[in-house]
């Protein structure tokens, strides 16, 4: 089996709201897959369908080859889930909560297995610097998140569903989290990571899916996606460059103190560099688009649509 998660044309409505509107998502076994999209675009709904908490209206969803709704319990032996907004039982301590969640998963398995889990648990508590004796009601958001992370990461699950798992962690803890995810993939586990921390996604993810308004807008490796967008180039030449703006695929040309900056589409890169080199390149800095830029392009559209709606609302 090459795909841990395979979603096609998924639709989920809540009353008249179409939360998911034909979403596609493929997560290959063993990869870390970034799941990106603006707030309210349907990431959490997708994950809750994968967990069998919500029932899809139409489309096909396959998780580890099973149906998340009808095979929920069997599938859940092989997955771990960390929500972004962690609620815990206020009068249980962090340590008790972790043990409870781990034991529920293992179903009171063999003693040897539990011993391994305990070692892993204690190691994670140590690394994430959690005080397991405190009652959950006294934990901060970050500490509640640590509890969920430790319970999830100390399991032997094949698939980790992480829904903005680090939104409350400090940078130090976030880097510990990243190490843990890399260790998990080294063990051959699959990770679906929904996150707004783009540096984290760039560092961890093999492939990325960007969704908007319940639909997939782009999916692929970061390299592939970079290919689809523009590279920023800043160049200084012996002679002033002419005719640059006329080249198809070159955008936003700006000259500043003998240096020219412009963006160029991936397809026009070769021709543009040839053109520029004829003016005698003294220095050239090329910047591939960051994920943030990729993202902002899609978010930007979203904002345009949203502000358009606001205008409509205001005028009506």
């Amino acid at each position, binding site marked *: 089996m090459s795909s841990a998660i395979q979603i096609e044309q998924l639709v989920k409505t809540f009353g008249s709201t179409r939360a998911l509107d034909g979403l596609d998502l493929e997560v290959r076994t063993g990869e870390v897959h970034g799941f990106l999209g603006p707030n309210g675009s349907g990431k959490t709904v997708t994950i*809750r369908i994968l*967990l*069998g*908490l*919500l*029932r899809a209206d139409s489309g096909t969803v396959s998780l580890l080859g099973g149906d998340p709704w009808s095979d*929920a*319990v*069997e599938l*859940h*032996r092989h*997955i*771990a*889930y960390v*929500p972004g*907004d962690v*609620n*815990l*039982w*206020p*009068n*249980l*301590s962090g*340590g*008790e*909560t*972790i*043990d*409870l*969640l781990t*034991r*529920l*998963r293992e*179903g*009171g398995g063999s003693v040897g297995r539990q011993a391994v889990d305990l070692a892993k648990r204690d190691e994670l508590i140590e690394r994430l610097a959690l005080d*397991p*004796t*405190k*009652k959950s*009601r*006294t934990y901060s958001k970050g500490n509640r998140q640590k509890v*969920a992370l430790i*319970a999830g990461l100390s399991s032997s699950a094949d698939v980790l*569903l992480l829904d903005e798992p680090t939104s409350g962690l400090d940078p130090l803890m976030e880097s510990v989290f990243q190490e843990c995810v890399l260790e998990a993939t080294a063990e051959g586990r699959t990770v679906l990571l929904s996150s707004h921390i783009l540096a984290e996604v760039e560092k961890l993810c093999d492939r990325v899916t960007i969704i908007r308004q319940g639909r997939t807008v782009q999916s692929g490796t970061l390299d592939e996606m970079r290919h689809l967008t523009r590279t920023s180039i800043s160049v200084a030449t012996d002679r002033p460059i002419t005719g640059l703006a006329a080249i198809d695929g070159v955008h936003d040309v700006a000259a500043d103190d003998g240096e020219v900056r412009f963006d160029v589409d991936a397809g026009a890169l070769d021709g543009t560099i040839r053109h520029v080199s004829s003016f005698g390149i003294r220095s050239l800095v090329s910047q591939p688009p960051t994920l943030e830029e990729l993202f902002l392009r899609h978010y930007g559209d979203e904002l345009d649509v949203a502000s358009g709606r606001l205008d409509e609302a205001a005028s009506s």
Partner: protein
Amino acid sequence: MTGLAVDAAVTPAAGENSRFAPSSDSSFTGTRRLLWLVLRRDRFRIAMWMLGLVGLMVVSASSIVALYTTNEDLEGYARTVRGNSALIIQAGPGYGLDDPTLGAVVMNETALWMFIAAAVMSVFMVVRHTRTEEEAERAELVRAAPVGRHAALASAMIGTLVVNTAIGAGNAVALLTFGLPTAGSLAFGASLVGVGMVFAGVAAVTAQVASGSRTALAAGGLVIGVAFVLRAIGDVGNGLLSWASPLGWAQSIRAYADERWWVLALPVVTTVVLVVAARALQDHRDYGSGLVAQRSGRPEATAQLSTALGLAVRLQRGSLVGWAAGLGALAFFYGLVADQAEQILEDNPDMADFFAQLGVASVTDAFLSTAMLIMTLFATGFTVSSVLRLRSEELSGRVDPLLAGPIDRRQWASSHLAIALAGTVALAFVCGAAMGAGTALVLGEADRVGELIGAGLVMVPAMWLLAGATLLVYGLLPRWSLAAWALVAWAFVAAMFGSLLDLPQWLLNLSPFQHVPALPAAPMSWLPIVLLAAIAAALIAAGLAALDRRDMA
């Protein structure tokens, strides 16, 4: 800082340098806006309480007015009630029954329960808008705004005052429309507001002291229970202890029986003292925690905490122990006065005929069966709230990590349901055993213990039926889960006021408790018990099936 106001007025430039505008801000700033929030958020609950408490008075008063038309009728009622401890416990001292008027009868039949209802409503309302808000972390958004530290408490208290006043006024108007005297009607309305506000003040204090909102609620409930028992002992005895109970004060105003208006000073002064104390206590606690600190827990879970059922036990055991202790004490107390029931016959030959016609062997048995019905109705409060744990676990998102593990919804729902069903049996047993112990002690009849344990346990299928109905509502229409309380409320009305209100039989039959043989007064019959249990099982099966098919919140 105070000089700023003057400076700013004289030289505007000085004001620009300082970000602090001179103002009259205090720790109560924002109270008015928060008050609107309180009333807006609770508008549905407030409407329900008003409808319930005014409506109950309207139907009670109308049926009493229709029932007791002559002086002989009133005198007959008074003869039965007067000086009878068993009845005094659940009705009050019966002011004005020496020379009975319609008003005095209405008060004796309804007042105490109205007072308790107002107290319960007030405790819930104050805790909901203080500690519960802090725990939900909504309050920090409010406190981050220019809102004073005491504004939440002040708005909760004022909001509760508004609602109590509306209920008190509604009751007074209802009584007036039945032609009852003005003074008595106003006195009852005022005492209703008074008792509500005293317990609002109690809740304001427990909300500062308790380590969490649930504990604050439980402490408020405990104070209501203690107030009930104190006034019951006082009313039966020389009346002294009744003065230690806010419920006793509310009765002591003597509506329709030569009103004592000065008694109203007691709730007013007490409420003010409690609110001032709550305000002072709040200054000594941290936001989000009570004066009683949260203890730290164990670093590792015990072996019991390994399953969904283990978690449900852990989450609900505290509440079950609390219910058992409270109900056990009250049931024991009911048992202790069982010997007083026989007095009814000595005082009232008519009643002897009445009981003879009903085929009831002994009045003591009749009293005990009624007492057991009341106790198990209370216990049903645990049953329903225990099932409704499912809803709060779902809404808070705490169920997500469980259902994301290898546990299906049935297992999870069954875990809390198991506590609800088993806890119900335990509470029915405790009620029976405690009442039996009290009765055995005072009557010297040891076999009463076993008899009353049976009388308690026979109620269990009816209580289970309400558990099943609650589960079905939760599974089918989760947003309407709280409607399950309407079933409990109806069972209460049918049991306490059913005969008084002369309601049609089919309406009374909607309460499962109507079908349970009233042991020990009536003979045992198995058929209704088996049927009730079967219906309960069907409701539970339907509820679980419905839960399986719907989306989780």
